[in-house]
């Protein structure tokens, strides 16, 4: 349901009709910007990353939140490695005592 894909707004083609062009991995597609304009002007959207669904920019992508999600996962990995290292350390200690 609801296929959506991140893209970057690269051009405003019709400010009145809130139309622009998004770039998705080198593919350019006209998109409607009505849902992501908010308070600012249409031109401010150039360079913004948005989620595109059926030719509409539906939501601005929150860069900090994206980084945060990845950070949580990275930390989880680091914690695992520390645990593993501790376990190895314990084992090494154990070996020495033997």
């Amino acid at each position, binding site marked *: 349901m609801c296929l959506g894909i991140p893209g970057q707004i690269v051009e405003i083609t019709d400010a009145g009709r809130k139309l622009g062009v998004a770039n998705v991995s080198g593919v350019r597609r006209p998109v409607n910007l009505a*849902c*992501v304009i908010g308070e600012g002007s249409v031109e401010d959207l150039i360079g913004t*990353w948005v*989620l595109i*669904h059926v030719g509409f920019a*539906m939501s601005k992508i929150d860069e900090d939140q994206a980084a945060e999600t990845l950070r949580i*996962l990275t930390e989880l990995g680091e914690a*695992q490695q520390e645990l593993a290292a501790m376990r190895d350390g314990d084992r090494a200690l154990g070996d020495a005592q033997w």
Partner: protein
Amino acid sequence: MKYVDEFRDPVRAGVLLKEIEALTAQIMAGRDRPVVIMEVCGGHTHSIFRYGIEKMLPPEIEFAHGPGCPVCVLPMGRVDDCVELAMKPEVIFTTFGDAMRVPGSRLSLLGAKAEGADVRMVYSPLDALALARANPDREVVFFGLGFETTMPSTALTILQAQAEGIGNFSLFCNHITIIPTIKAILDSPDMGIDGFLGPGHVSMVIGTDPYDFIARDYHRPLVVAGFEPLDVLHSVWMVLRQMAEGRAEIENQYARIVPRYGNEASLAAVTEVFELREFFEWRGLGSIDHSGVQIREAYAAWDAERKFAVASPSIPDPKACQCGEVLKGAIKPWQCKLFGRSCTPETPMGALMVSSEGACAAYYQYGGIDAVPEPAQ
């Protein structure tokens, strides 16, 4: 691709899988049946199969593939309406590709095209509107399909048609809403779901608050989830963590896209153009109150249902078809008596076999967990 590749990272997946294993062991210590997590949305079903996620998880974790594939839950009568509309000589019938193969009682849209109907696949309702602009002597009907995610796009297209005074464009509105349907599933007696992955793109429109009742009244965790495979694993982990800690809350894994209160402009356009229907019929689930929307009186001029006096016959699903049970997570696709016999992607009996987001087609095509053969060595 930015915001895509990072969320397909196998290293982080390995980390999550370890955490998931530990949590599963902890949860399973006190129970004797598997943990069932329903992914409400067909997009998640697709990711789960495309990336082979179910098989990566501990065997005690099962997915129930929910009703969130708009193509799959479309009743036969509505497909017949589409065919009837498309067959009108003045009509250019535009649709997303997803709907082309859904069987009606006599024809699919693909079949109607073969019989001479002018059916065109488009990527966006805006492209349908452009067709109307370019063909002033024809009637362009757009088949509006989908959940809250897609509603703003069709609502805004109607508003655009109004602003430009384009009279030969209309919407055949079949939009449905997800909340009443989740509620119907939670209320069904054979419900065995422990937690939910919430539909990420629906939520970017409606926000996360509408799910509160699921935690409050039904004590089930729901995590609004993104669609990349890492998002799915991350969300499964979040559901399990809630279960292990005895919590039932609404959490948001997809915060990079989903704001808590949804998207104001989208909701405003939807409210302006659409109103709730008293009920809407779903394939496999029957009629569900307030689960669909229709175009308000003020925009009747762009409503294909009014413009062409669409009949909307109610046509029962084939008797032996068990789509409803599959949708509710009560049985697995292969437990349906028709699966792989009279119901295959070539000759679908139920809609779950039509779209690759449908659980039955996904199992059939991608072979599910059990059907994926192990290399012998």
